[in-house]
């Protein structure tokens, strides 16, 4: 309190630098992630050949003359993510609408905490649930429709991820829908529209960028999910054949083989990490574009 002026000034400036330094850590961390992954992964990509690595259809890392093609994993990751979206997005958005505009108060106090609980459950627990419940369920469906299949399949992964992204989509969409001014809804009612129509034709479109943002975050979560997918997807490193058959996601490839890998094999797994980073980077750019568009209406 009684500190002299220069001392005071010094402290101000000192802390400003501390804050600035802290802020720089995020940037530094991001740079470090890129540096370490690229330094370890790029030589492998160079040795394998970029085209061979990205478009190679064979992943045989342990053979005497190994091949490292990640196209099967890229394809499986994309299929599984798309499938998860098909399952999770409609359920999530409708549930968000329900929570924001139709849910009786007594049901809300049950549904909302349940959704939050689901958001916090570790992915290992989801994976476990997937093996015991979803895989057998898909096995029956697959036997019925195709006469074969073990259940550990891309469909199982899609269903599981569809469930796992629900909390993300529900929570973010719900707040986007709630952020739409009440006057929109009331105006629509005043014009003679029904409750349902007002919600779907006026409120939901007004919240669309927020809803879209939630979907993109869901995509990010689905692409990045590891443990749960490994446990249910079958993990065959070959081009995906059907949703009733297995496939290996990019994340799974890393976590399955990292423990054993060495030399070029190990570096090629790190290079798989680079492919994942590029995916996330693209998703992030889309996200930024979408949220920036929405910025005026959100404020």
């Amino acid at each position, binding site marked *: 309190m009684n500190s002299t002026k220069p001392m005071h000034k010094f402290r101000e400036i000192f802390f400003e630098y501390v804050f600035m330094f802290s802020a720089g850590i995020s940037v530094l961390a991001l740079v470090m992630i890129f540096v370490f992954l690229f330094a370890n992964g790029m030589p492998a990509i160079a040795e394998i050949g970029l085209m061979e690595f990205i478009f190679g259809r064979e992943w045989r890392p342990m053979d005497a003359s190994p091949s490292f093609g990640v196209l099967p994993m890229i394809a499986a990751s994309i299929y599984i993510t798309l499938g998860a979206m098909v399952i999770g997005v409609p359920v999530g958005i409708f549930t968000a609408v329900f929570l924001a505009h139709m849910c009786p108060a007594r049901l809300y106090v049950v549904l909302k905490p349940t959704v939050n609980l689901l958001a916090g459950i570790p992915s290992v627990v989801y994976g476990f649930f997937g093996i015991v419940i979803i895989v057998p369920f898909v096995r*029956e469906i697959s036997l019925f429709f195709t006469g074969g299949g073990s259940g550990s399949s891309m469909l199982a992964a899609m269903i599981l991820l569809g469930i796992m992204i629900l909390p993300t989509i529900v929570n973010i969409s719900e707040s986007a829908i709630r952020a739409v001014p009440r006057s929109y809804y009331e105006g629509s009612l005043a014009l003679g529209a029904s409750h349902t129509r007002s919600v779907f034709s006026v409120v939901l479109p007004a919240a669309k960028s927020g809803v879209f943002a939630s979907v993109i975050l869901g995509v990010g979560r689905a692409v990045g999910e590891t443990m749960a997918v490994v446990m249910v997807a079958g993990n065959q490193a070959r081009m995906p054949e059907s949703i009733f058959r297995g496939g290996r996601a990019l994340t799974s490839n890393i*976590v399955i083989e990292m423990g054993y890998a060495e030399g070029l094999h190990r570096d090629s797994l790190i290079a798989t990490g680079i492919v994942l980073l590029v995916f996330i980077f693209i998703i992030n750019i889309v996200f930024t574009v979408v949220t920036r568009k929405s910025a005026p209406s959100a404020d």
Partner: protein
Amino acid sequence: MKKNFLKSVVMAVVLTAAAGIFSACGDDGGFVEGREINVISREDGSGTRGAFIDVMGIYVGGVDRTTVNAEIAPGTSHVLTNIAGDRYAIGYISLGSLNDTVRAINVGGVAATEANVRNGSYPLFRTFYLAVSDGISPLAQDFLDFMVSAEGQEIVERNYIPALESPSPFTGGGHEGTIVVAGSTSVAPLMERMREAYIALNPGVSIEIQSVGSGGGINAARDGMADIGMSSRDLREGELVYLNAIAVALDGLAVIVNNDNTATNLSPDQIHDIFVGEITRWNELD
């Protein structure tokens, strides 16, 4: 009024659907022989897979010929769970992990039992190795001596088959410090028991066990990240340049199928053909 009706209809539909799904899961007829075989293998680099493909002649001329359609289960329990629920699946696990949720198949007419591995009639088994470099610490060497002593081999005896015929009693001890052991998830449970017994004799010692897979353990031992590497497959020539491999136990491999599966016996050739994808349906076996 209409809305309440709709609400109840929707609820009824969902509940019926849920009930329907559950009843569909509980099933109908038994084992249908014409169905496809669902082959379940382990991940590349797993010691269990390494041993299996070596013994079955699936790894030939530097190429692992396991069918690409084989599902990859990242752990013994995933193999067990999948096969316990799938009548048409086949896989392989350590004999020590076998339980009654699945059934082991006879290989060439010989039952998968410890006794049959011991008397040499059952062909599918592997050796658990400890990989150490020449620069091993005295403490780690002492632990190693313990494991191949009479006391250590007695611990092996409880779940596996001792690698040594008549081991001599343990005479070391009196060390303090930390030992890092890394490697095969199959060897880890045995190592855990070894650790407990050794620490009971040498309370000043702590032992870290990392389950990172055979390949990971061998690399860790070579790079000095671990004092002892655990491997559940034979060490490759390139690896033996840096490391010494000490056999500590033998472990049978069981080829397992679902309890409802009608197959009871397969020849080694048939198992080979199934895992390389030349036999794809159960009725092709007869």
